């Protein structure tokens, strides 16, 4: 069967179930079909909006849907294409954006009640790049409040549900973006990753999420959680889709002083190289501390199997040790909360957001922040205030910064022995909603494998490695590269995705359960 007859068969089979094929298409398929003239951006955008209308009442991936704005962009792209205008690669492909990226005139809450109803007066650099890429913006996705959380349960607007099992968490903080991609509501989405908020949601929803090298994507206009850890990146269903989006959003930005002044990595070429030429000469390091004890049996099984695939693709597999990782989680929570307590001081009821009016400004601030922030935000601001306070600074924040040095040294030593490092993305498959919501320490443990990467500022991704035998839920595989070497992630990811699709007879997402239409 040729690709196009295969597509026609699939489209007919889906149509029989009342599903529009185009909501299932990859960004690459969408872009090719638009160029070939077999579909318009308006049709694609409408297919996504229809799917959102059908399932988002259940999934709750979106905090705001901008049907009118998305269709207006789609119409402009279709008109430009009809007029023979040259368009960027992803022109007309719809996208969802995490609600902490500011969008001019479109509500932006960062999942917090303190920003309810706020309309940003400007676009983030990322938003500007999405507009320049001519991609219709479907809306803003749900997240843990100010990106503090691993389950989306700390959103001020109610949790998102995992499309694979509606009683389970979709990960966090970017559970909305991952769930939107997994629920066929959007082929692409933007996430932000401070300690795993792109990769962990990708892992538990059977999708792909990439955290670029720190500074690879501008943070200007991304509501800051922890400025030395935060990084924006792509969420997608295929490696090539993620690579295209990475190239569209990356690059130097004079508005972000920490933005890398270097060329955007050649991500798309790397995916194709891995897929077509395999991994001969690539050294893959298994991080000893991120395997075995504490990891669910089904997660370990899928991890070992994926490593076998890498070996079969030509890679040399070695073991590396990163002993400092046992302190990484503790260091991370001290650094994150210290930076967050400072960043969140801007929510003071003066210039934007909620105000609970009292007789003096000080009392107004206290009452506003009491009402506007949820428990997790309060916990973290207080911990950060403590870590930075006189008499405790050296023991807490100072020590955490030293651990950060140790983590970087461990990574440097590991990368002397291997070109990329690998681990399971999360220790377990998604847990049940409500299970850890009142146990912050148990919630934090979910990020044990993703956090060291942020402390070192290096790039990493998560891609699906199958489902766990014991519960049938998705298991993510993490690939980590040295700073500035994002392309290596895409090469190894491209090779693994190809090998697994051959084994499964298609992508993992084609096995996701059908969602009931609740419209």
């Amino acid at each position, binding site marked *: 069967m040729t690709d196009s007859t295969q597509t026609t068969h699939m489209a007919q089979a889906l149509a029989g179930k009342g599903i529009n094929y185009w909501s299932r298409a990859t960004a690459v398929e969408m872009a090719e079909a638009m160029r070939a003239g077999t579909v318009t951006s308006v049709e694609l955008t409408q297919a996504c909006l229809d799917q959102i209308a059908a399932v988002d009442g259940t999934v709750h991936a979106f905090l705001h849907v901008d049907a009118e704005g998305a269709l207006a962009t789609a119409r402009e792209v279709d008109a430009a294409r009809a007029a023979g205008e040259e368009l960027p690669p992803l022109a007309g492909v719809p996208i969802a954006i995490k609600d902490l990226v500011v969008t001019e005139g479109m509500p932006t809450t960062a999942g917090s009640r303190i920003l309810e109803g706020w309309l940003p007066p400007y676009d983030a650099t990322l938003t500007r790049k999405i507009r320049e890429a001519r991609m219709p913006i479907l809306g803003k996705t749900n997240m843990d409040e100010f990106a503090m959380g691993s389950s989306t349960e700390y959103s001020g607007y109610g949790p998102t549900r995992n499309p694979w099992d509606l009683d389970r968490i979709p990960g966090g903080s970017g559970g909305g973006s991952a769930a939107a991609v997994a629920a066929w509501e959007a082929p692409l989405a933007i996430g932000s990753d401070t300690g795993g908020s792109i990769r962990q949601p990708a892992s538990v929803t059977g999708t792909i999420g990439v955290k670029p090298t720190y500074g690879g994507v501008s943070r200007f206009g991304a509501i800051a959680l922890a400025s030395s850890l935060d990084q924006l990146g792509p969420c997608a269903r295929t490696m090539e889709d993620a690579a295209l989006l990475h190239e569209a959003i990356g690059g130097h930005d004079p508005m972000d002083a920490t933005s890398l002044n270097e060329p955007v990595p050649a991500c798309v070429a790397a995916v194709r190289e891995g897929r077509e030429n395999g991994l001969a000469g690539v050294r893959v390091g298994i991080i000893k501390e991120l395997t075995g004890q504490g990891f669910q049996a089904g997660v370990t099984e899928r991890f070992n199997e994926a490593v076998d695939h890498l070996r079969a693709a030509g890679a040399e597999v070695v073991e590396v040790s990163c002993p400092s990782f046992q302190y990484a989680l*503790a*260091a991370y929570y001290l650094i994150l909360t210290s930076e967050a307590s400072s960043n969140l001081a801007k929510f003071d009821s003066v*210039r934007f957001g909620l105000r609970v009016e009292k007789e003096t400004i000080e009392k107004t601030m*206290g009452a506003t922040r009491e009402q506007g922030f949820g428990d997790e935000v309060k916990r973290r601001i207080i911990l950060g205030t403590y870590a930075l306070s006189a008499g405790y600074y050296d023991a807490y924040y100072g020590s955490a910064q030293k651990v950060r040095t140790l983590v970087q040294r461990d990574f440097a030593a590991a990368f002397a022995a291997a070109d990329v490092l690998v681990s399971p993305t999360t220790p377990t498959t998604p847990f049940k909603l409500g299970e850890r919501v009142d146990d912050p320490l148990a919630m934090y443990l979910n990020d044990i494998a993703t956090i060291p990467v942020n402390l070192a500022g290096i790039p990493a991704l998560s891609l699906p490695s199958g489902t766990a035998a014991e519960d049938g839920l998705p298991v993510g595989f993490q690939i980590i590269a040295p700073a500035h070497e994002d392309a290596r992630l895409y090469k190894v990811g491209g090779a693994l995705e190809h090998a697994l699709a051959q084994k499964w007879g298609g992508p993992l997402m084609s096995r996701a359960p059908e969602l009931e239409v609740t419209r």
Partner: protein
Amino acid sequence: MSSLSRNDVARLAALARIDMTDEDLDRLSGQLSAIVDAVATVAEVATDDIPATSHPIPMSNVHRADEVRPSLTQEQALAAAPQAEDGRFRVPRILGEEA
């Protein structure tokens, strides 16, 4: 290092400008105490000979030319303010709390 007491949490909340009810303090101080105990382990390995890292990617000072560039208008800057007056943010009384 000792855990956080309820009074410590009350003092820190006041510093961070977050009002807390008695119920909030009861709930959060127990959790915070456990979190502080868990993160205090960083001191075990942070010896004097290890330098601190504050930024993940080595970078020297980043400057730009000091010149006027387009920015928000006064109306745009004030549009989302809870209260504005005469081109300024309006806030409740700042000085003389007891007056």
